[in-house]
Structure formats: C-alpha cells, structure tokens
C-alpha cells in the first residue's frame, strides 16, 4: 500500500521536474533566439530565474524522496545501533519541523505578497511565483514521511 503510494508519488514528482526542466531549457533558448533576431523579450530572464526556483523546490522534494540531498552520513554509520536510532529520530524531527514551519510561514506570506507584481510582467502577482515555497515545503514533508520507515529500519539494523 505505502510502497505503491510512494512509487506513484515519485512518478508524479518526476513528471513535474521533467516538465519544468524542459520548460526552462526552451524558455532560455527562445529568449536567445528572439534577442538574436532583434526582438528582446523583457520578461525572459526574470521568468527563467523563477523557473530555476521552481525546479529547485520540486527537485528538492524529489531529492528527499530519493534520499539524494547532500549530507554526511558517515558518522551515523559508525555509531552503535542503540545510539543511532534516537539520533536518527532527532534528525528527522528537525527536518520535518523546518519544512512544516516553512510551509506555514510561506503560506501566510502569500497574502502579503498578493499585491506585489513581477518587475517585467506587471499583470502577474509575485504570489504565484512564490507559491512554490509552501507547496514545495509540503511536498518535501510528504516525501520525508514516506522515507521515514526506511530511515528508521536502517538505523535499527546492525
């Protein structure tokens, strides 16, 4: 059950990341092409930068699910299982607390930002771009919860 859900969730995040990566590559290429032919798109670099932030946070949630974030697991591997389990729980609690806080504060900030607009596209609210923070944080929390059983199993193993 859980494994099937995890696989589906992974598929979903993978497709989001593929679409965003492709969109980013196309957007930058189109921007260069337009400038080359003399029609500079004013919004091109601002939108591309936002695209990078989107790839970052959806990619980060996927990286959490694939356990690919940059860290130092060496010390924990050297500890005896008795010490490892409580420390692994503490580490997971810290990660979850950080992203729960980020999702909540990120959501409340959206209301404040609703009336700010992008510099190059005055008709688009900053809140749309910034929505990636609470969404990405929630996806990260879900991913972290899904890998939690695996992390604890490894911590318990000799």
């Amino acid at each position, binding site marked *: 059950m859980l494994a099937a859900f995890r696989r589906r969730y992974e598929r979903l995040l*993978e497709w989001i*990341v*593929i679409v*965003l*990566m*492709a969109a*980013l*590559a196309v957007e*930058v*290429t189109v*921007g*260069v092409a337009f400038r080359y032919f003399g029609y500079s798109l004013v919004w091109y*670099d601002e939108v*591309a*930068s*936002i*695209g*990078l*932030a989107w*790839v*970052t*946070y*959806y*990619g*980060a*949630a*996927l*990286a959490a699910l*694939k356990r*690919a*974030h*940059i*860290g*130092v*697991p*060496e*010390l*924990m591997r050297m500890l005896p299982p008795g010490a490892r389990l409580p*420390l*692994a729980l*503490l*580490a997971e609690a*810290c*990660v979850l607390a*950080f*992203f729960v*806080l*980020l999702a909540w*504060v*990120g959501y*409340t*900030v959206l209301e*404040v*930002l609703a009336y700010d607009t992008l510099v190059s596209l005055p008709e688009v609210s900053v809140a749309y*771009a*910034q929505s*990636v*923070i*609470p969404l990405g944080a929630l996806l990260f929390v879900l991913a972290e919860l899904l890998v939690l059983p695996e992390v604890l199993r490894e911590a318990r193993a000799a």
Partner: protein
Amino acid sequence: MTGFLVFVCVVALVLINVPIAVALGIAAVVAMLVTQGAAFLPNVPITLFQGATSFPLIAIPLFILAGAIMNTSGISRRLIEFTAALLGSMRGALAQVNVVTSMFFAEISGSAVADVAATGSILIPAMKKRGYPAAFSAAVTSSSASLAIIIPPSIPMILYAVMAGTSVVQMFVAGIVPGLMAGFGMMGLCYWYAVRYNWPVEEAFQLRRLRRSFKDAAWALTMPLIILGGIFGGVVTATEGAALAVVAALFIGMVIYRELDWKHLREAIIEGGVQTGAVMLLVAASALLGLYLTEAQLPQRLAQQITQLTSNPWFVLALLNVFFLFVGMFLHSAAAIILVVPIVMPVVSAVGIDPVHFGVIVTLNLAIGQQTPPVASVLMITCSIAKENVWTVTRANVPFIVVLLAVLLLVTYVPATTLSLVNLFYR
C-alpha cells in the same frame, strides 16, 4: 558568541545526517529568532525563494542536461572513437584515449560525474580486456574526469562566480591553461607508466581510419566551438551558452546521429532535476544564513583577525589551500563552495588576491577533493562502474593526485597561469 553557537549547531546537525542545506536553514532561523524575534519569520520564505532565483545559476541544470543528452545520443561514443583513431599508435594508447576524451568532453560538460559516466562505462572494460591493471584503469578515468570542472564550462566555477560576485566568463577563461596543464601532465604520467610496464599499442596509425572517424565525430567536435565560442565571444551569456548546448546536443542526437534513447534521456533529466534541487536548496539556504552572517558581520571580523596575524597574500593562500584540501576531503564540492566561499571572500580581498585567480585555486582544490576519500563523489562513481575497491583505486590514483597538486601549486604561486588570458581578453 552567537556566531560560535550557530557554527556548533550546523556541525551537530550535519553530523547526525541532517542534509547540510536543512542544517543551515535551521541554524539561520534559530539565530535570527534569538536576535530579532518572531517578526523576522516572514523573511524566511522570501529569502529562500529569492536565493533560488538566479539567472547565472540556471546554467547548472542546463549543463547537466546537455551532458546527459550527449551520453545518451552517441556523441560520447564517437568522441572516444575519434581519439582512439588519433592516438591508437601510442604506447598505452587506451590510457591516453581516456585522458584526451575527458579533455574533449570537459569542453562541453561542466560536471565530472557526467564525464565519468561517458568515458568510464566504455573505456574501463576495454582497458581491463587489454591487460591494464584494473585499479589503474579506474584511477585514470576518475582523475581525468575531474578535468571537466577545471576546463570550461564548469559547474563549480559558475557556483563560485555567483557566490564570490565575480564574472563567470572570466572564471571560464582562467581555467583553460590550468586545465590543459593538468591534462598534459596526466598524459605524460600515463606515457611513463606505459613505457615502464610495456603496455600495448592499439593499431598502426591509419589516415583513412582517422578521416572516417573524424567525419563521424565532426558534429560532436563542433559543439565546444559553438558553446565556448558563443560564451567567450560575448554573443551569449554562460546560461544562454548552456541552453545552446542542450539544443545542439538534442539536434545532433535526434537529427544527425538518430540514436537518442528516450528512456535513458528521461532518467537523465530526472537525475539532473534531483541534482539541481539538492545543490540549489543549499544555495538558497546559504542565502538565509547569509542574512544572519551579514547582520553579525562575521566574515568581516574573521578577515580582520586573520589580516592582523598576517597580510602576506602568499601565506594566506597557503593557509586557504590547506583549508580547502581538508574541506574537499569531507564535503561535496558544491557544498564546499557554497559554505566556505562567502566566509573567506573578505579575507581574500583584504590581502589583495584576485577573485578570479582565487576561484581557479578553489576549483583545483575541489577537483582534488573529488578524488580523496572519505567523501569523493567522482572516485566513488568510478569505483562502482569499475567494480573495484575504493582504497585500491585510491592507491593507484596517488600519482594522478600529485599531478593535480603540482598544477595547484603552480597556479597558486604563478598567478599568470590563470590571469594572463583573462587580462589579455577582458581587462
């Protein structure tokens, strides 16, 4: 005092295997809550968002993507065939082919990991079959792959330029001479081994074979010209050059060679997105910690204390080299740049070291760091491709690391190796 506590907090969290990016975020939030109270909280999501929106850094996912497309479209294989036809008559030919292919590849890809995937899976089995020691085959693949981050384009150089506030293009130009020196040094080392152990030549030089493989690889060989020519000529920025690299690789893979493998490409894009997420989350989190560091003036105070001890740039460079070599052993190269560069930059500028020169020094240190366990990203991947023990390969790798160290020393104390081209074209 809070500065010290923040440092302890980050280290403690990292040691219990909290991802480094998250550890930075937690430490920054706690420090700011203590010094400024809850009114600071709304700055957290805003800074984390803005920290991830950077036009120059878009080059990172794009160069990863370009490298992935090359690996799945037959471009890498043709590059290897061409260098084999070029160097096949040399003693120890396959070792030379390994280094030279890595040097070609380094001009298109900015990531040593992509380079290992391209050369290692073809050349390590081939070398073993021809009787080269397995550990040596893995070592030459691993070390020459690190040329990818010294020879432009280079993802660590892009990260450094953004973190240090200097020019990506100038960093790229500054990397050319040190990259070639390291490459030729490795070729020399391979030749010495080949003569000593009488390693095999592959085949007599045939102009016909060379011409055929050149024709076959011609499209692949034009890619560095398009990408680097566009960037150095000032026609496109580094980010746009990366987008061109993606388009060119797709065009060659789909229209010219017609070998593009969609299943592998899909996996490669996902892998690229995951790597981007991991590195950029670290960049964004360091922006958050940067808020606190700037507030507390920590890097400036550190700079003051060090310059009180000594203001001799040679001595400071020696210290920084030792420090970066140490950091490179224990940290992933992207993490090392993101964590350390913002803190040491005030020292670097206080003693009058050129930021571009320093950037190449940092890159070389991290290229060595990719080869030195316990944390050695490129070495680990090579060992898993070669199915060899990490420590056996490391022993065989020592002479190659010495080549890189020699280049590092030369670059550190002869700034002209990096700066003469930059001065010639850009200053």
